[in-house]
């Protein structure tokens, strides 16, 4: 009895997703290697990486489709391979390459999946379909790619899951629907659900996420909250002098280009020391842009050699 209650408290306190040294290979090729990841409950977590980085492999391991070659993956404290069926009661999943049964309509898919889940999905499904402007009476075989994606999202969310795992959810959606999707995901998170989604679009992650992990060549190269990542991201700085600078610039100001009295620079960190230095210069103009995550992400994507 004590053992059971300890187990239940462990799963109650466990993070939504926990991966430890998770490894999966495809023959000699590495899918993911010793991946460590924790997704806290209630977070909107972005999983970023270029194509082939290991995002879908990680998601397929979490969904119990692939057997890990090393390490383990857990959802709400339960092993993703051994307790796959039980875990999925609480999980809504949208595959990256979504294939639906072509003979089904949206309504019959909700009925069929509802029967399998032992839950009536019609009411919530209809509400979601309305938000996505989706006609539930059209057969999947006659739907466009974007419409099928909308139906996939409706099917993933209709049972009010505690965890949403979405593999590139905005694929095929127009900008209006992408915004609708973002609103819905924020709403789900506000209601206590955890959202874990993969993307290769930084702007989407920036708009939506509390926390981000970047995966490259099967390894996590960054895993932090967005605020902290922003503080590490470079800012573009433009300095226009009245006359030549009188003091040496701070060491961390990286001057990229000098054109007469105009410098294009890059600055990482707090703007305080930069402003102090600038106050002692004969300046005509100083522009400090927002931290540029794009540059940081590109550096992570294209960094040479093994990831840290």
């Amino acid at each position, binding site marked *: 009895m004590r053992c059971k209650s300890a187990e239940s408290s462990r799963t109650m306190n466990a993070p939504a997703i926990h991966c430890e040294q998770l490894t999966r290979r495809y023959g000699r090729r590495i899918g993911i290697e010793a991946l460590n990841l924790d997704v806290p409950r209630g977070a909107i977590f972005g999983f970023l990486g270029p194509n082939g980085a290991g995002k*879908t492999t990680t998601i*397929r391991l979490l*969904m*119990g*489709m*692939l*057997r890990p070659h090393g390490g383990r993956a857990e959802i709400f404290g339960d092993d993703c391979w051994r307790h*796959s*069926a*039980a*875990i*999925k*009661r609480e*999980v809504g*999943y949208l*595959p*990256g*390459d*979504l*294939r*639906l*049964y072509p*003979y089904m309509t949206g309504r019959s898919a909700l009925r*069929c*999946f*509802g*029967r*399998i*889940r*032992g839950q009536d999905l019609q009411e919530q499904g209809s509400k979601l379909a309305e938000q996505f402007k989706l006609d539930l009476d059209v057969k999947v075989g006659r739907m466009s790619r974007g419409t099928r994606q909308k139906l*996939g999202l409706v*099917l*993933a969310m209709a049972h009010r899951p505690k965890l949403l795992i979405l593999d590139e959810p905005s694929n095929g959606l127009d900008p209006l629907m992408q915004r609708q999707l973002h609103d819905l995901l924020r709403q789900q998170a506000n209601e206590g659900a955890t959202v874990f989604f993969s993307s290769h679009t930084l702007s989407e992650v920036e708009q939506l996420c509390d926390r981000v992990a970047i995966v490259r060549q099967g390894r996590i190269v960054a895993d932090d909250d967005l605020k902290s990542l922003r503080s590490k991201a470079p800012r573009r700085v433009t300095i226009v002098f009245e006359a030549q600078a009188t003091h040496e610039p701070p060491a961390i100001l990286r001057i990229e280009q000098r054109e007469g009295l105009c410098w294009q620079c890059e600055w990482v960190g707090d703007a305080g020391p930069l402003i102090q230095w600038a106050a002692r210069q004969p300046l005509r103009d100083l522009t400090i842009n927002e931290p540029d995550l794009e540059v940081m992400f590109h550096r992570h994507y294209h960094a040479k050699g093994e990831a840290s």
Partner: protein
Amino acid sequence: MCGLLLKTWRETRWLTVICCAAILVVEVVLTCIVPRLQQNLPTMLNSFPFMRDMISGLLGIKVRNTISPAVFSAILWIHPVVFVILWAHQVIFHTRYPAAEIDRGTVDLLLGLPVSRGWVYLSEALAATMSVILVIGFALLGHVIGRSLARSGFYPPVGQILIILLNLLLLLLAIGGITSLFSAMSNRRGYAIGWAVAVVAASSLVSFAAQWWPILETPATVSVMEYYYPAGVLMGGGWPVRNMIVLAAVAMVTWSLGASITTRRSICTV
């Protein structure tokens, strides 16, 4: 389980309906024409001596100038058209999961639901078994209709036919098990179908050819077709218990192996 069965039924109802209708028509026609064939058998064998070997191979007995009506009626249950319908049913049904689901990519959606792979496999097998029982039932119905149309006392009692049909059901379950095993090992339905058809065809060919080539008698013992012998039942052999046990064992072993592979393997759709 109920939801899974309903999904399977929805996807396979036309396969079942088509197979039922086809086997019904074939059995009505065969039941009506076999008594006439039997009457003309001596003339036919004199005109086309190779027919003797063909019929021997099919029935699994040595054919002289004539065969008793009861034994000749075994043709109804071993005719190639009958086999093609029944094999097609089994091969199509048993390659649905996991091979076809992986092949068309819908397995991601299916296994994204709170169902274990084992339950899906079991529900597919249950649905396939119910469907094949229905198809065999329609074969019997076709035979009964044909008997009433032919109005002949040519055929043996229905009790003997039921023993043959039970043997046939076990043969089909064994073929289903073998097909499921190939399906469990494949990511492509085409491969699974190809391997299953190759094994069943080879099994039939070995069993057929072993009638004349003693060298094939030993390999024929591993052919599932060797354990389906309607002529033996109609010659008064009673229940083919050994054959039935072998077929049931093949069905159980191959099905369990398939289930084990399906639950342990990694599933890749990309």
